[in-house]
């Protein structure tokens, strides 16, 4: 059954996407504004992240404790997520609580007051979190890789949490200004999935958001990614750790690139299918070198990354990197087989019902669909989009995406290089 969500637009431009389901008497709410970390002001990396930590700690009409009580008494965890382009408020509530909860989330999104005391508390929390990240080889390797792939202050290369210095320098006024600049109805989408009729979802959203008025902010379009011309290797020594993390990557394509589905299938064969695709077969299954190894493709507004990650013993770092190289050479030189493409395609198409089983998963899918303009029938069209990809398309994607002589390799852990 296709999702067929109902999409309506309020007078102020805010989009409401609603999909009724009946699995449980609950509702998933997913509010997103186009104000992710790419909106961080120049020199203030981490501003959006800090705003996400404090936005729900007081509004013009509610104290932090009022909000806490309203959420806690209903058993709700409010998750506030920041990606490169989206700032999202996400929760699941009982169906009976839908109306007051959407009202509360709307208040948080539209009218944060950012009390100074709350800001000071959250700043200290973020600083502690940055210190924990500094001791985490997985985070260190990935962040260093992104900084190398997206240099010169590119929004995709910045640390989402910023630095201790930037976080400590941020003020209430600066965060309120950021909110005023970037949060507006025309860049906000409210997705409601669950035990509520679409007409009611629309009506409640209209009551909550209808009077919100803000001019449209200009869209954020990061500069195109520049492809590295040569292979690079960086070691982040962390001698107090037991295991090393490898992050090995490239810049690839935009999400709206017509070749996206060929890249998706290529990445599935290479580093996803079953237990990490070809990479998993080699590095985990045949050589027993890693508990986890896989690749991920994150095509985005501009050219997103393809990243291979593996956790290995320090003694195996060189062998693991050589094995990744070897798989890439095979991928580019020999290509993948028709059988591999068919297997991955069958898996991706067959997994759609499972991927869209829960309210929260459907809400997340619809939010992505809206952000990239994929169309309300995207879930129904997706199988054909994957079926249209040929073996040649996949092999062309492999040749375009990866090459050992322009790989960027970061190793963080008890390894001196």
């Amino acid at each position, binding site marked *: 059954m296709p999702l067929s969500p109902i999409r309506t637009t309020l007078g102020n431009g805010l989009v409401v996407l609603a999909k009724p389901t009946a699995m449980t008497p*609950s509702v998933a709410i997913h509010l997103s504004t186009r104000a992710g970390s790419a909106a961080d002001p120049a020199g203030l990396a981490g501003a959006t992240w800090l705003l996400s930590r404090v936005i729900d700690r007081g509004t013009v009409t509610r104290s932090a404790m009022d909000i806490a009580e309203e959420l806690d008494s209903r058993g709700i965890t409010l998750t506030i997520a920041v990606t490169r382009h989206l700032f999202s408020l996400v929760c699941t509530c009982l169906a009976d609580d839908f109306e007051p909860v959407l009202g509360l989330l709307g208040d948080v999104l539209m009218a944060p007051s950012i009390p100074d005391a709350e800001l000071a508390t959250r700043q200290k929390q973020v600083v502690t979190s940055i210190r924990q990240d500094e001791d985490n080889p997985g985070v260190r390797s990935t962040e260093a890789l992104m900084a190398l792939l997206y240099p010169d202050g590119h929004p995709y290369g910045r640390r989402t949490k910023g630095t201790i210095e930037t976080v400590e320098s941020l003020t209430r006024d600066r965060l309120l200004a950021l909110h005023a600049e970037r949060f507006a109805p025309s860049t906000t989408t409210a997705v409601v999935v669950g035990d509520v009729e679409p007409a009611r979802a629309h009506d409640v959203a209209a009551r909550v958001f209808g009077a919100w008025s803000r001019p449209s902010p200009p869209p954020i379009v990061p500069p195109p990614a520049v492809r590295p011309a040569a292979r690079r290797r960086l070691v982040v020594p962390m001698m107090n750790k037991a295991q090393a993390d490898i992050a090995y990557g490239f810049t690839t394509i935009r999400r709206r690139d017509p070749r996206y589905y060929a890249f998706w299938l290529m990445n599935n064969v290479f580093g996803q299918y079953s237990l990490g695709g070809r990479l998993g077969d080699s590095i985990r299954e045949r050589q027993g070198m890693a508990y986890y190894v896989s690749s991920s493709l994150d095509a985005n507004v501009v050219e997103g990354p393809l990243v291979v990650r593996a956790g290995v013993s320090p003694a195996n770092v060189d062998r693991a990197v050589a094995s990744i190289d070897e798989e890439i050479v095979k991928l580019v030189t020999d290509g993948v087989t028709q059988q591999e493409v068919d297997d991955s395609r069958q898996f991706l198409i067959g997994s759609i019902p499972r991927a869209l089983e829960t309210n929260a998963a459907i809400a997340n899918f619809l939010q992505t669909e809206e952000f990239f303009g994929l169309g309300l029938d995207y879930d129904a069209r997706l199988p054909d989009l994957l079926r249209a990809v040929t073996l040649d398309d996949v092999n062309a994607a492999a040749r375009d995406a990866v090459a050992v002589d322009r790989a960027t390799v970061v190793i963080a852990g008890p390894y001196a290089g």
Partner: protein
Amino acid sequence: MRSATLDNGLKVLVREEHTAPLASVWCWYKVGSKDERPGQTGVSHWVEHMNFKGTTNIPRDQVKGIIERFGGSWNGYTWIDQTTYLETATKDALDRMLFIEAERMANGLYHPDDCESERTVIIAELEGGENDPDQLLDQELTATAFKAHPYRHPTIGWVSDLRSMTRDDLYGYYRRYYVPNNATLVIVGDVNTDEALRNAERRFGAIPAGTAVERIRTEEPEQTGERRLTIRKPGTAAYLKLGYHAPSIAGEHFFPLLILDAVLTGAKGLNLWSSFRSAPPQRSTRLYRALVEKRLASWVGGALLPTEDPFLYTISATALEGTPLATVEAVMLEELDRLVRDGVTDAELTKAKAQLRARLVFDNDSVTNIAHQLGYFETIGGVELFTSVPERIAGVTVEQVAAAARATLAESNRTIGWFDPLPVA
């Protein structure tokens, strides 16, 4: 839900859920790290890994893709009381899933080369865990809190045992515990119950029953005084963890303690597979207010998990940058003392129950999660325990919470662990 037991002792639970064209199959074994003897710690988990490496009728090179071609996902886990395997896929894969689980129960290959390559994979998994100071502290705290019961050693095992165990150790363990009379098969989804039971009989009926499993009977003696441990390793943040011996799922204080935990750190639900993936609602809880809102900790959490034998109730905190662990500990203990002294209020009890009611709904949002819960509770005391959870939570009184607090949160019943970081060179 229908329950049936085959002649060979395999228990089968089937529940129809027709909201999506999916089916989830879980095969549960009553074997976990508490069944392991010294020298063989980690064997349950290693056996779990080996059971993804081919069978007589699913050769090694045909494992990959066997469920993926139905769009399915598969996984498994091992913990202290149980080992489980699952597949969730489109409903037309039901018989394929039953075939995989029957093969796994009866016909595992345990090729010596696969045992060796998996040895290093598991040691890599262990080292990855050691990279996380909080996980390391949890392991050390558990080993200190228990001195006799096998809950004391980590599920992944001690590294020397992982280095020395042999293929015969693994295979012998597999044959001893992977028998139908030690297993429960759970089927949930867009299925017909009668047909599912017939298919289960067809796939599993011919597997012979094994010898009744002999259990380790050691009980943990009562703790008679506070225990402490400190890990001093290079790091960038300080962690505190308190562990109190806590009742099993069958203990009279379990559900009152669940309420108590909700009051202290927020209600989590009872689904080991899904409940702990998102933070609990906790901003109005006592410890969040006392530690996070007072700028002493950046995070606080509690964990009371349903287990077959008495395990631990743990409370953890990450000290805010610059705050001494002693300060965090003092405030945490003061809050716990207050709870023992004064109990919880009617309003707190009401709120905790409302939270738990919502979490139980959220815990059952997919066929995979529902199937998990039925099987998990079966391995720790019986599926009927699961169906009685809402009623048992609803029946808890403030007096019972107070009694649970007095029985559990005593100084002599606790172990306190610190990860006190040394400067990173």
